[in-house]
């Protein structure tokens, strides 16, 4: 019992000190941040951690040149300039460890709010713990739609979820029709047959039906296939305008090689992130990877339209020699959203922060994301989130939709293999 008592005395002494010196009462606001810092996703976890820390340092610092909420405020002004302190924890990719760490951060570290956890499965259990204790949990980068369908009162999510990403692809097609008079109608779906691919295919069918498109073929294949010849022949026979494809890296590469081999040329190949957005895909495919269209959460060339992206990216590069990517940009944004709400609440009481989060309304120009802003609906989901559509042009990923954020015009149709 002795070791536990010592901090109590210390805390009592600190409280007493705080009563005497109200100005020094609150110097730190702790936020618990849980990421996969070891295991298969450790490198991603570290990127997320670095981005989140950069966000906190910008808020605690005095550089006012970035147009982000509270950047350069030197702490949280409405909390007497209290500094933001991120307490990081590692969930190792395990939902049980995530819940354990969430509880430790809440009860031992006394964090005002939690953020994380990248893996949807871990976000699930860690946010349950937060819900039990009545502590706000802001998730910035997990995309499973179910997370905001649980009726939780303390859970908020800034990133759009998977369903919205699929919806984006159809909005892109609709805009093409409206603004460029292109009318692709026949869609073929090619998807790997585990959760990711089948889930996406189901949503694509739903939105195709609503949008009046015709699904001319739907092919599911096992993700570790060593050949896709018969699958591609089926696609080719269906003569689709658009192929909507959900594949992991290996099969994305294999399918592209097979398209070339069999001379299959749809009007456009609209991929659903994953394998097609892996940097390894472009390295392996070289020129043959060109003209692929894919959905993305973020792209560096957005900086052309949003100068704040370039500035933030410079800072991250200076520290860690890497650029932002879709994951780290979202982690960065989550910390700003959380800090902005805590500051507006002017208190670290969970109820006050929860109320402030419900009233959050951050405009689009104060974000490094291609979103319409941050405003939560009653389920805690950011209703203004949006994805972007990129196209590989000359070996580079460029933003082609939404048109007002586009770096370049979309190249349509997909040129045939012999004319490249």
């Amino acid at each position, binding site marked *: 019992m002795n070791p536990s008592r010592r901090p109590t005395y210390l805390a009592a002494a600190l409280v007493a000190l705080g009563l005497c010196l109200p100005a020094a009462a609150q110097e730190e606001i702790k936020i618990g941040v849980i990421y996969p810092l070891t295991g298969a996703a450790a490198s991603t976890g570290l990127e997320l951690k670095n981005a989140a820390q950069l966000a906190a340092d910008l808020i605690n610092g005095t550089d006012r040149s970035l147009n982000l909420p509270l950047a350069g405020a030197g702490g949280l002004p409405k909390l007497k300039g209290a500094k933001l302190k991120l307490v990081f924890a590692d969930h190792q990719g395990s939902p049980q460890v995530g819940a*354990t760490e969430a509880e430790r951060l809440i009860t031992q570290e006394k964090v005002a709010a939690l953020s994380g956890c990248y893996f949807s499965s871990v976000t699930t259990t860690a946010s349950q713990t937060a819900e039990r204790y009545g502590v706000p949990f802001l998730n910035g980068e997990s995309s499973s739609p179910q997370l905001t369908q649980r009726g939780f009162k303390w859970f908020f999510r800034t990133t759009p979820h998977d369903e919205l990403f699929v919806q984006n692809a159809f909005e892109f097609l609709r805009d093409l029709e409206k603004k460029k008079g292109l009318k692709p109608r026949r869609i073929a779906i090619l998807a790997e047959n585990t*959760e990711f691919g089948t889930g996406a295919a189901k949503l694509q069918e739903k939105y195709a039906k609503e949008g009046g498109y015709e699904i001319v073929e739907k092919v599911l294949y096992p993700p570790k296939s060593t050949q896709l010849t018969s699958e591609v022949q089926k696609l080719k026979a269906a003569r689709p305008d658009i192929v909507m494809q959900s594949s992991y890296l290996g099969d994305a590469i294999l399918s592209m090689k097979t398209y070339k081999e069999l001379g299959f040329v749809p009007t456009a190949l609209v991929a659903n992130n994953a394998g097609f957005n892996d940097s390894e895909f472009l390295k392996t495919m070289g020129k043959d990877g060109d003209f692929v269209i894919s959905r993305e959460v973020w792209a560096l060339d957005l900086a052309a339209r949003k100068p704040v992206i370039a500035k933030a990216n410079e800072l991250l590069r200076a520290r860690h020699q890497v650029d932002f990517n879709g994951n780290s940009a979202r982690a960065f944004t989550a910390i700003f959203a959380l800090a902005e709400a805590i500051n507006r609440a002017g208190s670290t009481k969970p109820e006050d922060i929860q109320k402030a989060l419900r009233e959050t309304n951050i405009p689009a120009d104060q974000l490094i994301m291609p979103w319409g802003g941050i405003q939560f609906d009653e389920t805690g989901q950011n209703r203004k989130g949006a994805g972007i559509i990129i196209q590989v042009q000359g070996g580079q990923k460029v933003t082609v939709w939404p048109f007002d954020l586009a770096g370049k015009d979309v190249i349509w149709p997909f040129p045939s293999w012999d004319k490249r």
Partner: protein
Amino acid sequence: MSRRAKLVWLAAALVALLFPLVAARPTWQNTAILMLMTAQMGVAWNILGGYAGQVSLGHAAFFGAGAYVSTLLSIKLGLSPWLGMVAGAGVSAGLSLLVGWPCFRLKGHYFAMATIAVGEIVQAVVNGWEFLGGAVGFYLPLQEKGFWGFVFNRSKLPYYYIALGLLAFSLLVNWAVARSRTGYYLRAIKDEPDAARSLGVSLTRYKQTAMVISSALAAMGGTLYAQKELFIDPGSTLSTSLSIKMALAAIMGGVGTLAGPVVGAVVLTAIEEASRVAFGGTGRGTDLVVYGGLIVVIAVFQPAGILGLFASRRGPARAAPAEAPAKEAA
């Protein structure tokens, strides 16, 4: 059991019963629950892996069966998870018959390898089977439901005492098996399979008996996991790393002994939690290095398990399990 052993068990039970009342911090209680759950898994594994000497590295399949059966029954039919726990144990025992029939034709390392394959196959099947939630898994609603509903939000104490009760039940089963005729057969099969067979002991039948009991207990642990975490997916309830953890608790504590898995689980969980709290936030994996290093140290210096430390005073480490028959004979 010797008088001393009885006293130690009694003291341990008393400490376990009173612990959460003294240690009110939720994180301590949570760590204690993790210890009890790991110990229960280790005890379940030990019946097959320790007493019968059949090292299974696919026991997560049985743990997962318990988690999935109770969760499915609760979500789809609204049945109480307590009934689900019994059903899960039954399904798991049935599954173990299916697995045992081909796998028990293999001996030693080959059996262990086959069980790894079984574990992986079950995980792959569940990953791709939409009825079983696929790769996404299942969410259980976060609502206080009381004892019969098996969801407790307000306090950790119910989970603690349920975990303790389940561990006590598993130990009781283990104790009963160990002193029964089957228990002697299992040890004979482990040490001298050929001699056992020449005396008319059916190897397959008794190995299978051990596996049925072991897998049913593992499944009960799975149900408790599902009800505590309220979320299951193949990665967290069917992974090979979970199978290894079950084996590790038993092997570190002292394989083929009643108390071994409990001691192993307490030490393992303590190291795991303490190293993560101390180093986990650094992002350099220091905690796992410390965790792995300590396991290696124990394995090198105390290959008979931590319990061997205490047994060695009275003779060789193996003396502990052999003690019971000696007494019986007297």
